[in-house]
């Protein structure tokens, strides 16, 4: 065998565990990005779908939706669409995780002297990058249909940062879903069942004021509503939630941060735990 023996200079074992973790995350994130480059259609979730939704709501349903307190529905729509566009990448994350788990590749990773948490962290970072693309697409199509920002750049940056934090928290929920389900089809279905009501029983597309009384508290406490309200506030767009007397409606930004950090605190450790013990 031509095996040239290894010298110490060929190994990274001398580095600290944080450096190794970052190395592993970087190597695996590059893997996911290479996949996107080879199959750009995997991005349709954050490119074509949001465009379809925006156009459908702006031109089909929008005309029938009255906004309490007045305002342009096209401007109202984009704050809600951001949340939906980012959170709905979570089923895609679940599908990718299930697919990885069902091939031998994860067994190989688990037999290597690499960081246990790196595989999942890399997955979520790659998905965060696709969410950045998704946010840009929503903003782009929004501008095209007449959505405008009426505040300063600081507010806009804050709105997008909140949306991405929110989306990142959902990605970890998607990872957990992928760890407990057995097939990509099951992940797709379950994701749909969870995210469809989560998106629509909220103020993302319609104000909660028009919902039946028993449904209103559910919609008001839905994290999707908080994100939509926070974004509308920060963009200076019509925000009927400001008229709702519920804590998350009145403190939308804080509610988004609480929801996101809470989900991260639950789902990230849970995902790593599930990964460590998968099939053991």
């Amino acid at each position, binding site marked *: 065998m031509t095996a040239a023996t290894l010298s110490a200079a060929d190994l990274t074992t001398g580095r600290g565990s944080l450096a190794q973790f970052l190395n592993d995350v970087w190597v*695996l994130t590059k893997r996911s990005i290479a996949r996107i480059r080879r199959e750009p259609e995997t991005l349709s979730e954050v490119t074509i779908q949001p465009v379809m939704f925006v156009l459908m709501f702006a031109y089909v349903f929008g005309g029938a939706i009255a906004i309490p307190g007045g305002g342009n529905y096209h401007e109202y729509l984009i704050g809600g669409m951001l949340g939906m566009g980012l959170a709905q990448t979570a089923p895609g994350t679940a599908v990718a995780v299930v697919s990885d788990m069902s*091939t031998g590749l994860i067994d190989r990773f688990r037999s290597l002297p*690499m960081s246990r948490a790196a595989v999942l962290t890399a997955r979520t970072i790659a998905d965060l990058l696709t969410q950045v693309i998704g946010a840009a697409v929503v903003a782009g199509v929004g501008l095209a249909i007449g959505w405008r920002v009426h505040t300063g750049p600081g507010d806009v940056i804050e709105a997008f940062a909140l949306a991405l934090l929110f989306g990142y928290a959902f990605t970890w929920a998607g990872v957990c879903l992928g760890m407990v389900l057995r097939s990509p089809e099951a992940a797709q279905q379950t994701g749909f069942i969870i995210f469809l009501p989560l998106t629509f029983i909220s103020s993302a597309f319609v104000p909660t004021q028009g919902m039946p009384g028993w449904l209103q508290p559910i919609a008001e406490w839905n994290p999707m509503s908080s994100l939509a309200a926070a974004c509308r506030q920060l963009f200076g767009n019509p925000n009927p939630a400001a008229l709702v007397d519920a804590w998350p409606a009145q403190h939308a930004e804080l509610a988004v941060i609480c929801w996101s950090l809470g989900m991260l605190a639950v789902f990230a450790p849970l995902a790593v735990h599930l990964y460590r013990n998968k099939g053991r």
Partner: protein
Amino acid sequence: MSETPAIEAEGLVKHYGKTKALDGLDLTVGQRTVYGLLGPNGAGKTTAVRILATLLRPDGGRARVDGHDVVAEAAVVRRTIGLTGQYAALDEYLTGRSNLVMVGRLSRLTTRAATRRADELLERFGLAEAATRAVKTYSGGMRRRLDLAASLIGHPSVLFLDEPTTGLDPSARALMWDIVRELVADGTTLLLTTQYLDEADQLADRIAVIDGGKVIAEGTPTALKASVGGQRVLLTLAEASDIAIAVKALQPFAAGSIIPNVGNRLLEVPVIATDGLATEVLRALDAAGVRVSDIAVRSASLDDVFLTLTGHAAEAADEDDDKAELAEEAAV
């Protein structure tokens, strides 16, 4: 003599629900040797490999690789081992080269060392031309070779190969065998599982036969084959009434019990192959006045080994599935 064995397992037990995949498995594999785990589907081979490769936690017993416990010192063990499973553990969308570099980087090699080693392995395994193509365009044999290359990139001293040739055509299998022999020459300790006796025979220094999650026979291929009869002589007699006489006449050649089939005038004799054996068998039968219509000599199969060692045919662990299948077949 006190060299630490490359692999040691004592009384490994693993349950999957009610199924006992391992039922007190013991193994000792010496440094720089090739050890074959031979058994049918469901015998516990893969479970054993997964425990030794730190992927599974045993429910009972203990195992060490290069002296390190696979549970308590899993992280240390992972620096020592390479694993090639039954299904190619590769990223379909990456090129062959990117796959190897990725695994190399995750095996604690620097980018430079990983790249150098990847190119070296691609060249050696005849994949240099396909190196820049996505793995999903590879044939089954190419995937297996790339997969093996990936498990070698971190210079493991102990390599696990789980059924490395299952599903490969004969030429791809021969190529895998050549590669395995090279590895051995290089001093790597190899634990390979297989369903094929000839594969274990060709490659392994020692073989353990596994059934029902434990080792039922262990030894060198020669000794093992001798114990069950390495070959089978199949005879078709002219007269069914001669069977009893023939069995008696063949007793000196038999390395196990002779299996008669009166209805078909058939005799199956386990033997140890020697030059001129068939001639001697025919002479002995002729001397006993038995006329032979047909004679054939074939190698003992895994089924033969099992039949001889366990008294039952090699069968998959999913007995319920098999029974269901049989019932279905019967119903048709």
